[in-house]
């Protein structure tokens, strides 16, 4: 049965469509809009990471991202481990860990799986599972171990930057970012733009949650059918699509009002009046900061030296 055309077709369809079907469900069930907001909002806590020099925190994801690009797979694993360790130091809440795992494992699984299907090495190709003609017309002749490994490598490189950026976002107040950019001699507008962008996503998610709640309070059915109520899913998709149209105007009006308010606040607080901006909090270098800078410089320096001697360098 399993080796018949029908059986092989079913298995192949399952391999191809399982991940794209599971990921949205996992996102809705385990993350949702509220979870997404948690992912990028600052969580005020008393950890050494929170009090670290904001400049170091801005440099850290950049440096780790560069290392993830220039180093080969073996060394990449070390870099990846180094990006995971600070999370243990941060001790995020259980809710945030759950969201973070879904948001990290989801894209990782997507990269791993899609490269396994579509990245084809030079022949001879070793297939883990070769698809029959009934599905290979979709563009993938089968799933390969080489593709999976390649997908894992690429995903890990992306995750290094994603993980370090998330770490910094949840442990750094947006005002500290502005301060760091100021000290990097960048125009204050850059810091302000970054601050506005960082605040926009959580604000937008909050506003969307509120408007969706209001739609339901007005009698619009957004209840989700259970997974086995297949005939009802089409109606659900139709209702959600229609709802997107409904909520667009209040969201747009709310966002424009928010933007106007932000502009008024910037003017009211005298943004741009003086060349150099003052700050309530002035960060002074501590021993932990110095240690952090030393580790970062050593890491980047070591990577440059090693790659110069063709150790750990990525083959091109």
């Amino acid at each position, binding site marked *: 049965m399993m080796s018949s055309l029908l059986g092989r077709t079913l298995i192949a369809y399952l391999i191809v469509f399982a991940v794209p079907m599971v990921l949205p469900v996992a996102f809705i069930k385990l993350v949702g809009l509220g979870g997404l907001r948690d992912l990028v909002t600052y969580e005020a806590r008393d950890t050494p990471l929170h009090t670290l020099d904001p400049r170091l925190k801005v440099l850290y994801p950049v440096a780790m991202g560069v290392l993830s690009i220039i180093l080969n797979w073996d060394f990449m694993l070390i870099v990846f481990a180094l990006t995971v360790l600070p999370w243990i130091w941060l001790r995020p809440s259980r809710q945030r860990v759950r969201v973070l795992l879904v948001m990290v494992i989801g894209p990782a699984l997507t990269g791993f799986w899609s490269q396994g299907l579509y990245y084809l090495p030079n022949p001879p190709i070793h297939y883990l599972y070769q698809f029959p003609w009934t599905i290979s017309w979709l563009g993938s002749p089968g799933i390969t171990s080489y593709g999976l490994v390649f997908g894992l490598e690429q995903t890990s490189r992306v995750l290094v930057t994603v993980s370090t950026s998330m770490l910094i976002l949840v442990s750094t107040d947006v005002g500290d970012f502005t301060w760091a950019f100021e000290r990097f001699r960048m125009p204050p507008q850059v810091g302000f733009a970054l601050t506005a962008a960082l605040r926009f996503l959580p604000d937008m998610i909050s506003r969307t949650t509120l408007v969706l709640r209001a739609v339901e*309070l*007005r009698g619009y*059915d957004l209840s989700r059918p259970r997974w086995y109520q297949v005939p009802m899913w089409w109606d659900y998709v139709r209702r959600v699509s229609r709802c997107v149209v409904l909520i667009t105007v209040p969201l747009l009006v709310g966002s424009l009002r928010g933007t106007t308010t932000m502009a008024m606040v910037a003017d009211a607080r005298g943004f741009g009046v003086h060349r150099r901006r003052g700050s309530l909090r002035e960060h002074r270098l501590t021993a932990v900061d110095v240690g952090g800078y030393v580790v970062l410089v050593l890491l980047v320096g070591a990577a440059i030296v090693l790659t110069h001697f063709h150790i750990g360098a990525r083959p091109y």
Partner: protein
Amino acid sequence: MLVLDEPLSDLDPVGAQEVLGTLRRLAGEEGVGVVIIEHRVDEVAPWADRVVLMDAGRVTLDQPPRNAWRDPAAWARIGVGVPDMVRLAHALPDAFPAGLPLSVEEAAAQLAGGWVGPALARAAAARTDHPQPTTGRDGVSRSDSIAPGPPVLSWDGVSVDFRGVRAVDEITLSVDEGEWVAVIGANGSGKSTLTGLTVGLGQPSAGRVSFRGRPIRPGKVFQHAAQVALLLQAADEMLFEETVIGELAFGTRFRAMPPDPVLDVEDAIEFFGFAGLEQTSPWELSQGGRQRLALAALLVGAPGVLVLDEPTTGQDAEHMRAFLRLLEAVRARTGLTVLTVTHDIRGLASRAARVVLLGEGRVQLDGPAAQVFARTRELERWGVLAPPVARLQAELLGPGARDVLLTVEELAAAASSGRTGAPAAAGISGRP
């Protein structure tokens, strides 16, 4: 120079006093000029050095506070509120020989030793001679004026936790058919969480919430919205259509309507004053108009309960009075049960038949407004200031007062009748 635009609008009364105290210190000790644009005149009046009244873009008055309210009619014409103590002084001019008081403390100091205190005591004794039945918890009784209907909403041992923090703590409460209940409390006391549960917003960690005996299922907002109409504080977020009539008909397009709704679309257009505006965009209406539209749209159909979350926040006295009149008219027309969450103690909460005070997620006081607002010290302990008129009575009669009068008109009438010996009730006029 500090310019603050409605800085108190989302604050509970005690929080508002803290902000005003800080501003006063900034002005007094640091020499910072402070300009406050505010509708809550009762709270701001004692702190201000100058009062500027504006109308249609022009300054119509600029005086020290004691002079500013010499002619309350000028304020009434524009629709801006006058502090209660000033109104009382105008109602009882011979009781305030030293001039207009701006705060409860000033008024009490002027009235101390005068005729008003004994007159109010006599009026209070007369009310006590005709006691009302006591059935409520915490020693606060419920008045006969509360409609004796069956419970329409009930919370049985309900607790709600947010990430390890208990927002609502084992609350058992019920709201009867036709009642008007105000839920008050400091910011973070659990008011909105408690009322949100009535439409399935939020998940109780313990207990049961029910509507007419049937459990309310968390997350099933759409289903429960047909029974319980919840008007959010951000009423603008509840408008989705391109025209007023589209907005009113919104609910009828998406859910089954009862055969004989209390208010259908045509009724709502007439009743809420949208005749001739049917094809107007909701965004072209004033803020008050948009709030009225959101309320009308919720009432088309047949909700059993209307829940209002801070409906008068940021509104001036005239708009607030208009909203209260509308609410009274809705109740008279539909007999609807109303549950309001509010910081507006002077306006909205004192109008409700019954007041529930929440503190630290628990019910601290529950009873008729006149009796709950007599407990000024307990209210203050939980971050709430009673209406100025109630606090003045507490100052004059001492903490033992069983109930208090809630409006300037009632207080002035009771004082006058207590002085002359005429029956107090005969002199009590309607609330403004």
